[in-house]
């Protein structure tokens, strides 16, 4: 492993420039949207969707990174560098949150003093749902996530040169409490940022569903990146048949858990049939949103599920990468479907005008592009395969046995 030849990085800087350019265009369209009274509010909402997508990939990668430290195994070793690069985008994602913190009152009813005044329910919940406390909580979440990402990355670098089993043990020791911290923080964060868009509505499944969506985003992104990068020698030799098959099986498992949690929430609300719970789905079945919902059932669950059952698909690089990218695209659709219909008080949420739709696409592409460029920058700073790992022999063996 240590003697893996250093290969020049032919296309990554080029990808980075393209991503940066596309991202800048998307952000520029969003900024232009701010200038108009009619589209301004859509820019805020679109920014929330884009923020949730990028923070989801970064945090999901953090979870998978901690998971592979806790479970071991070849699949984690070969995924480690893409995962690490994705987690080290945490500062950028934190930056993405700042504009949102300033426009809370345009997005959340509980942050708008006039609306709180008029609604006794909101006054009731004001102890938790108020602007200063929301800022403090966000500060705590980001502090924890940035620290976890920073430490795991730093120690992994040290391990490359020190080749010390003690550092590996330290990563494992941090990952266990890190996992618990993630579950706690994402449960509260999902309430603060997304569920409280409709402060009258509640679902105990929400945090788990939202968090699982993030894990799926992070994993699908890392798998797609790994396959795209595997043309390069140093990771290419590690991504043979059996390693790819394991990654495909895990992707299948994550897709199924996401579907299980999402469907469970629907089933519980359908069975309960309570007037305070059901409207959440009614808004999401209105107008064009029902087609997006149907898309989720087919392309976020059914198609990846059927494809990933087949060993041949899981062993085929192009097929596996396509399925992972499809899942990632559907993550964006899922977030749109979760977030935008929440603004049902405004009729434009059911059937947004063309300009507004353009802004949602621009924000997703823009923030995604900037994020991806930053990710590529982080990825190129270190060799694509970690230099030291107690399981490295296994990773190479798995690749060879697959052929």
């Amino acid at each position, binding site marked *: 492993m240590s003697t893996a030849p250093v290969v020049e990085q032919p296309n990554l800087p080029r990808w980075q420039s393209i991503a940066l350019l596309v991202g800048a265009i998307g952000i520029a369209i969003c900024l232009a949207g701010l200038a108009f009274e009619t589209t301004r509010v859509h820019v805020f909402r679109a920014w929330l969707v884009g923020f949730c997508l990028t923070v989801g990939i970064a945090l999901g990668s953090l979870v998978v990174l901690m998971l592979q430290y806790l479970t071991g195994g070849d699949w984690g070793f070969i995924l480690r560098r893409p995962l690490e690069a994705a987690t080290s985008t945490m500062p950028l994602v934190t930056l993405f949150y700042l504009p949102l913190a300033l426009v809370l009152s345009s997005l959340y009813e509980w942050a708008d003093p006039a609306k709180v005044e008029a609604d006794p329910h909101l006054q009731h919940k004001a102890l938790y749902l108020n602007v200063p406390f929301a800022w403090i909580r966000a500060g705590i979440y980001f502090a924890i996530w940035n620290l976890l990402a920073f430490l795991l990355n730093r120690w992994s670098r040290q391990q490359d040169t020190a080749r010390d089993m003690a550092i590996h043990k330290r990563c494992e020791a941090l990952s266990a409490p890190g996992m618990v911290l993630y579950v706690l923080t994402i449960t509260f964060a999902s309430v603060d940022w997304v569920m409280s868009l409709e402060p009258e509505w509640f679902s105990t499944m929400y945090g788990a569903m939202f968090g699982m969506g993030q894990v799926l985003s992070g994993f699908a992104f890392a798998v797609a990146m790994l396959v795209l990068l595997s043309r390069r020698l140093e990771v290419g030799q590690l991504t043979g048949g059996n390693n790819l098959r394991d990654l495909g099986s895990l992707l299948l498992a994550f897709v199924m858990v996401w579907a299980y949690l999402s469907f469970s929430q629907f089933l519980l609300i359908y069975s309960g049939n309570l007037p305070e719970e059901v409207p959440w789905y009614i808004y999401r079945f209105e107008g064009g949103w029902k087609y997006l919902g149907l898309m989720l059932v087919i392309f976020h669950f059914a198609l990846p599920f059927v494809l990933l059952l087949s060993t041949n698909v899981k062993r085929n690089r192009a097929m596996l990468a396509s399925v992972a990218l499809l899942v990632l695209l559907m993550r964006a659709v899922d977030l749109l479907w979760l977030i935008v219909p929440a603004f049902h008080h405004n009729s434009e949420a059911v059937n947004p005008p063309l300009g507004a739709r353009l802004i949602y696409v621009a924000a997703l592409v823009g923030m995604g592009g900037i994020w991806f460029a930053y990710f590529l920058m982080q990825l190129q700073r270190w060799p694509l395969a970690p230099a030291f790992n107690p399981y490295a022999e296994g990773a190479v063996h798995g690749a060879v*046995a697959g052929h």
Partner: protein
Amino acid sequence: MIPQELPPYGLVAEFDSAQALVVAAEKARDAGYQKMDGYSPFPIEGLMDALGHKANILPLLVLIGGVVGGLIGYSLQYYTSIYSYPLNVGGRPYNSWPMFIPVTFECTILGAALTAVFGMLGLNGLPEPYHPLFHVERFALASRDRFFLAIRAVDPKFDLIQTRKFLESLGAKEVTEVPQ
């Protein structure tokens, strides 16, 4: 007594290591042998490929078993809720399909799992209380620390003398003729 007029079952070669077995199987496959099998105390990664194992119909059977299980699960609930005992629950339609999905899913898994277990047993011809290889005394070591490669006499390329020479050339510790 073993009736002498029957042709032999084949030849079995004994190896010391899993690696030796895989290499031998690969060479035998490349030499054109098809009717052969490997025996070892534990699963060996890559042995199936080395033996020239081809895809079988079990995955297809499991898929069919799953689909049939799911259909049975859904039909059971559909029949119960619509024909046998229609009950108005909270004003929902009798055919409340979201409520039927968990049971349908479980029945799909049940159908697929049962098909996988019994299909595997059936396709392998198990249970099989008698096997010609049991005549070879040392074959008992296949469940301890030895690795065996058997080439059957029905293989078109099989020849008692040539195949024995071939197996010996692969570094087998011992090659034994297996009576029928």
